[in-house]
């Protein structure tokens, strides 16, 4: 093997008491696509931030191109030839594409504009340099990020979960770009937890678990099953089968909803229609930023419809378009939002007080005062039933890991025994064990007759959970597709807007 381009030895990094990386060794060969594989919380993102100089390791050495290296800042990393594309993009919405690039790359605006166009042509990364970032789709933003990196002529390009924001078709296009880059002399560090992708594109893989390296392998020599075992330390949990069920009563119905949000950066919705029945899980697929948050807020009651809009949203048979979140909850609605900190839970408050947030109607209030005994009992029950790992009910919500806090919130909401449960991104940032527990719970609840609506970016998750799937793209919703009769590629075509409604209405739509 040739001398490695980048070589890490004994890298460790702690945040307070959390040891994010411990004794990491890693070698990246020149002109290779190298995967960093690990589940949420394994320490992948931390490691990348250390390489890119966003953070500094506590101990350890880095050798870059045969020279010892200390990366004090991202600017220095870029000078040395290391570029990074972030998972949650580091773009500025109020600036134009070229202004965003100007922040990183020296040069005059006119020259940069020209170079953006050239690079776009050469690598299949077309984007309008003079456009503002806020109306761009997620895929376009990713292209801007990649162009921004390429303009610094990197020898190593780090991509943090690049495919999580792309529909299946665009993933192929991205891989094509990456191969072209590799053949042009750039090494790529590819961070992912998706095994098939890594097998498809990577030459080498380093597997992380709990902040440590658990293996260096050639991913093409192992099947997904083996890789998964290395990644999570045991076999993948089996998905739970859903019982076939005939649809019950309508619990949520949205009819021809149009919505123009107040926020100029938000996505307007047009002609949204969907129905969720008792004993059924409906999934909403699509890449975030296509109207998911707007639709979620309208369903949850965090946003209400303007006065003139009537008969658009029905819950348990009532028109709820103008009701606030509390009023909708009284009808038997519960909601697990996509962001846990500061929305689903108050990080600075104890779990007991966080139970109160939505579970207060369960007799946790007496004469206007908080009934601490009952609230604590409720919290303890939730911790026990949903296997929330915490020192106790008085622990602050913010001190829990993402997965445990999510289990707590899912627990709190389902303990309200709602008629309609709405879960947005059920397993975002959640480790595999917790994610599988949450999915099993949702299927159990469905089998018991609850109506469940799920919004998710993860197609695999939706295929595992849902009876039918609708795709949200540019603020419009596709007709419902029966999961068992649909392939992921078809969903993917809706995700990029390749389908028109008329083409499909005859075949796939539900009767």
């Amino acid at each position, binding site marked *: 093997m040739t001398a490695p381009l980048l070589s890490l030895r004994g890298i460790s990094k702690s945040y307070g008491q959390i040891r994010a990386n411990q004794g990491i060794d890693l070698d990246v060969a020149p002109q290779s696509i190298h995967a960093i594989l690990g589940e949420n919380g394994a320490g992948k993102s931390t490691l990348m931030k250390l390489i890119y100089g966003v953070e500094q390791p506590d101990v350890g050495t880095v050798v870059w191109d045969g020279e*010892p290296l200390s990366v004090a800042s991202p600017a220095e990393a870029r000078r040395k030839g290391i570029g990074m594309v972030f998972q949650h993009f580091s773009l500025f919405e109020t600036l134009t594409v070229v202004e965003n690039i100007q922040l990183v790359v020296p040069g005059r605006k006119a020259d940069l504009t020209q170079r953006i166009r050239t690079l776009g042509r050469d690598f299949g990364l077309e984007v309008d340099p003079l456009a503002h970032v806020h109306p761009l789709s997620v895929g376009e933003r990713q292209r801007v990020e990649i162009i921004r990196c390429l303009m610094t002529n990197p020898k190593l390009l780090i991509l943090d979960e690049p495919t999580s924001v792309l529909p299946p078709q665009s993933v192929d296009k991205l891989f094509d770009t990456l191969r072209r880059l590799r053949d042009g002399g750039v090494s790529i560090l590819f961070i992912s937890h998706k095994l098939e992708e890594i097998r498809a594109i990577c030459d080498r893989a380093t597997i992380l678990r709990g902040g440590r390296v658990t293996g260096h392998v050639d991913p093409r020599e192992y099947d997904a099953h083996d890789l998964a075992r290395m990644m999570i330390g045991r076999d993948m949990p089996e998905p739970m089968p859903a019982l076939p069920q005939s649809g019950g009563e309508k619990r949520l119905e949205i009819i021809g909803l149009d919505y123009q949000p107040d926020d100029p950066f938000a996505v307007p919705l047009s002609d949204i229609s969907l129905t969720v029945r008792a004993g059924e899980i409906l999934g909403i697929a699509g890449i975030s930023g296509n109207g998911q948050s707007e639709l979620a807020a309208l369903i949850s009651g965090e946003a209400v419809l303007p006065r003139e809009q009537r008969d658009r949203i029905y819950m348990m048979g009532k028109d709820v378009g103008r009701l606030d979140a509390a009023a909708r909850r009284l009808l038997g609605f519960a909601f697990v939002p996509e962001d846990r900190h*500061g929305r*689903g839970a108050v990080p600075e408050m104890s779990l007991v007080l966080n139970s109160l947030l939505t579970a207060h109607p369960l007799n946790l209030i007496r004469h206007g005062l908080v009934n601490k005994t009952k609230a604590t009992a409720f919290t303890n029950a939730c911790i026990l039933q949903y296997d929330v790992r915490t020192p106790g009910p008085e622990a602050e919500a913010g001190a829990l890991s993402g997965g445990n806090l999510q289990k707590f919130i899912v627990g709190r909401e389902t303990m309200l025994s709602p008629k309609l449960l709405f879960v947005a991104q059920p397993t975002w940032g959640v480790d595999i064990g917790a994610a599988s527990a949450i999915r099993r719970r949702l299927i159990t609840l469905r089998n018991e007759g609850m109506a469940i609506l799920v919004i998710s970016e993860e197609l695999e998750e939706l295929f595992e959970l849902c009876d039918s799937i609708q795709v949200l793209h540019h603020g419009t919703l596709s007709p419902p597709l029966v999961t068992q009769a649909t392939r992921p590629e078809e969903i993917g075509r809706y995700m990029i807007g390749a389908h028109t409604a008329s083409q499909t209405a005859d075949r796939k739509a539900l009767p």
Partner: protein
Amino acid sequence: MSAFSAAFLPTLVRRERASLAATLLAPPVALAAATVVNLELYVLMGRDPVAVAYAMLLEPFLSWASFSEVLLKIGPLLLIAQGLAIGFRAKVFNIGAEGQFILGAIFASAIPVWFPQATGQWIWPVMLLLGTLGGALWASLTAFWRVRLNANEILVSLMLSLVAAQFLNYLLLGPWKDPNGFNFPQSVMFQYDAMVPILISGTRVNVSLLLTIALSIAAWIFMQKSFIGYKLQVGGLAPRAASYAGFNEGWAIWLSLLIGGCAAGLAGAAEVAGPLGQLQRSISTGYGYAAIIVAYLGGLHPIGIIVSALCMAVLYIGGDNAMVSANLPIAAVRVFQGSLLLAYLVAVAFVRYRLEWRRAAYRSQP
């Protein structure tokens, strides 16, 4: 640039959980630090720091007469601060308590000014009620501007305070001026029944002190035990969680501002119907602003605020003493107040964070 800061400055590291010790230590440490800094300043000004310290910090406790004045000063500070703290915890920054205090004083004065001959024990309670109403009305303008017009409540409430001060001037120089007052900007002296009864004979301490303490206990129950108080705190800590749970934001803003306005208005009424006995230009010596400091220094906690109100009252009386005995300008009190709040804000950072002096150990070995 970041390399520079990482290598030469200590960094704040977030604690796993809030430190109780730091919470309790922050106010006394801040008080000590502010005292040291300010005494240093007095030395620079050529004053004798021992004399100033004696006059400011000890003298208020040395005689019953001056301590009773401290008790008298506690009233408005404590009352306003309790009201403001409720709003601050809901992240509703009403900094216009000064104006609400003035309107409370004006509303309360309406009875003795318009009906100077009226008698009866009903007068002073009605004046206190009217004052409460006046403060609430003034605060409701801010609430309306914030909730309906989306305007920043800090700026609106502050501007309304400046307007209130001008309104007071107008009344005292015009329609409400005491015709026999030698053209001084003040109203007539109030009749006996328009005064809050004295609580401790021989002093000016009156019944409103009891009221204030009772309301502090009520504030404690409200913020620490009641569901409404809980909702306000959720709104302050995580507004999106409040909206997720369906706690109405507009309602919380109205409630916070009305509570603050009522408290400040009541304090204003108690001041004119208590120690002053007439409406004057200088009814408030910055109570509305000092109460902001009292509220923060008390950790926005009803019990803490009782202690910090005592400290601030001592500072007021001590400042007066020092003005006389050590020839210290009264502005020194404002300097002390400002530096005290700054010191507290630094000290309270250690509740959530600890300092780490360790510089980045990351150096590659050759």
